[in-house]
């Protein structure tokens, strides 16, 4: 009796602490949401999370307040970029991973090492040479520099998927081959479906990375009509002058919705992907 009572008390204390920590970590999110519906004069002056008066003016001014463009256009651009990036990354990385994990070809180890080397290279080193290449190709101020490279694989995801595929029993390959499968069918029919947790992990990472990427999009996109959400958000901010804070917060709230949705939709596979690659790799 006392033992179970003890257990219950412990469990209550545990939950209170966990709940407290959770709320503490969520505080910035609550603050953001609260700031987005507060009158401008209250955003930085009032400590209360509950605004004295609710206003949705920031949402409307942020959404339509810009000249010749609506914030919705930035969302469409971002979504388009993300979709292409996800398809490109998942397709190309999984193919490369399949080759590294299953096919014996000359210098395989060297190529694998070279590929890993590319993801050790800091992005800043390649930034300017890459920009010059894209400029010479006439691709600056288009979506091409942000999408085409995604179809050439991403070292980190190739590595992630290689580790996953190595965990899939080779017996399956062999039985498929006996049934007459070539490399292509083996890849599309056997390996790809079985590695879906890793693919979904790669897809979610790519989506979030592209959705939140500010610098790459800033460098390559100049025309306001091609702007994406991260660039659009910064349009309200001028560190050396006046900033439209209300609109920034309101649009920030909207901009985290897609990331959250994708994350919760794929959450199950996401953790599964990380966990299984960890164990079996």
């Amino acid at each position: 009796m006392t033992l179970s009572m003890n257990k219950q008390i412990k469990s209550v204390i545990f939950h209170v602490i966990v709940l407290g920590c959770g709320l503490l970590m969520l505080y910035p999110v609550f603050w953001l949401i609260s700031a987005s519906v507060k009158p401008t004069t209250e955003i930085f002056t009032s400590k209360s999370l509950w605004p004295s008066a609710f206003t949705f003016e920031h949402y409307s001014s942020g959404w339509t307040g810009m000249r010749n463009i609506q914030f919705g256009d930035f969302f469409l651009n971002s979504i388009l970029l993300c979709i292409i990036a996800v398809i490109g990354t998942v397709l190309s990385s999984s193919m490369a991973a399949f080759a590294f994990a299953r096919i014996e070809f000359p210098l395989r180890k060297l190529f694998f090492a070279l590929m890993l080397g590319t993801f050790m290279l800091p992005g800043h080193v390649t930034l300017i040479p890459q920009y010059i290449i894209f400029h010479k190709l006439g691709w600056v101020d288009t979506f091409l520099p942000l999408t085409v490279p995604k179809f050439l694989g991403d070292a980190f995801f190739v590595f992630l998927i290689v580790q996953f595929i190595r965990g899939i029993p080779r017996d399956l390959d062999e039985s498929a081959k006996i049934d007459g499968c070539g490399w292509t069918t083996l890849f599309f029919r056997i390996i790809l479906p079985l590695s879906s947790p890793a693919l979904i992990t790669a897809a979610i990472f790519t989506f979030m990375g592209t959705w939140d990427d500010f610098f790459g999009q800033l460098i390559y996109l100049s025309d306001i009509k091609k702007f994406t959400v991260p660039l659009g958000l910064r349009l309200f901010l001028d560190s050396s002058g006046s900033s439209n804070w209300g609109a920034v917060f309101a649009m920030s709230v909207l901009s985290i919705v897609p990331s959250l949705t994708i994350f919760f939709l794929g959450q199950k596979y996401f953790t599964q992907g990380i966990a299984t690659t960890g164990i079996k790799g």
Partner: protein
Amino acid sequence: MIKTKSAAVSMLTLAILLSACGNNNNNSNAGASSPAAPASSQAAASPSAASGEKVELRMAWWGSDERHEKTQKAIELFESKNPGVTITPEYSGFDGYMDKLNTQIAAGNAPDLIQMGGNIKEYVDKNALLDLTPYVGSTIKLDDFNQGLVQSATFDGKLYGVTLGVNSTSLMYNKALFDKAGVPVPGKDWTYDDLKNVAIQMSEKLGKGNYALYDLSSDSGAFASYLGAYGKKLYDTDGERHFEKEDAVNWFKYWADLRAAGAVVPADVQVANPPTAADTTLVVKGQVAIQAGSASQLAGWQQLTQDTLGLLMFPSGPAGSGMVPPLSGQYITAYADTKHPEVVAKFIDFMVNDPEAGVILGNSRGVPPAGKIRDALAAQATPVDQAMYDYISLVADTAPPVNYVQFPVDNELLALMKLTTEKIGFNAKSVDAAVDEFMTEVDKLIAKSKAQ
């Protein structure tokens, strides 16, 4: 699976189609507009426009939505006055602006017109900016400009930028706290003794958690102004310091006394709530009455509070006011490799001297440098704008006619002043000992700047 794929494919196709349409539109527009437009007498000044060929320029600036909108309207006005010229705006927030510009310069792909801040010299040294001297007088008219503003963008006798707006250091105050304490807001002729009295008096009346004044002892601008008020100078064209240990002791002692009297924001509170940004300063929150800041921040910060904010000059001393004359906040510069330097020069003149453009741009980049534009704006100013104009004019009238030279390694001086303040503030050193170290380090900084 198949559905998403086909959806993606159709989206891709759509994107390609859309972009193709966009291009067609551009071409047909250009084709339609350039032959139809007879070269005006003004456009004849530039050979490229006169030949009926169309001129395409790009212009980059940073700012917030208000500035974006006003600048675009000014560009449209210029385009309508100069048929055949198209200026494509490339605007963003300040985050990453310089990084993008650096990348573009490295690739030889920078915009023709570039908004530049105080770091203009860095780009002059990189040979990235166009020498505007040949156009001064003929295309770019600067007669109406304060000579100091022209000097600030002149390097080795060549002009590289034109000021878009002037700005000045100030003491920004929250009037509600003065009202609450029942202390009148000081006038323009106040002294450092007045400041001390006001601060002590107000802090007593405002009670716990509220303060009269941010601790300005580590603010190099405030220190320079103090030295000026006592007939000294922080630094001058000869590259030497023009103050003695005694002056620095007086300065740090002044703030140590205020600190001891509880009249300034304590160090820990100040670190947690720095007065440099709207979202952290306690002046906007209504807990501190006075801080140092730049005058152009007034309008933006006023929107964030219901209290009335205002601007005060730094106090005077025995030698009068130590205020520095209004300085350039932002410049418009041209890319060294622009293909149409004449049109670029013409647009630069348009931005600062055209009355219509002046009214459109307003004070979106600080107070306009040309007097006639300021006069045109005064008619439509809001009370906050008016307060800012009045303040800039007041500083321009009050500031002694000295050639102001900024300390060469200002960031390091700032760090040094902060360190000295902390040594004294946390009682690690006496004022005298801390200032001894301060003077040694200042001389090292000056030696370092000479070596550069």
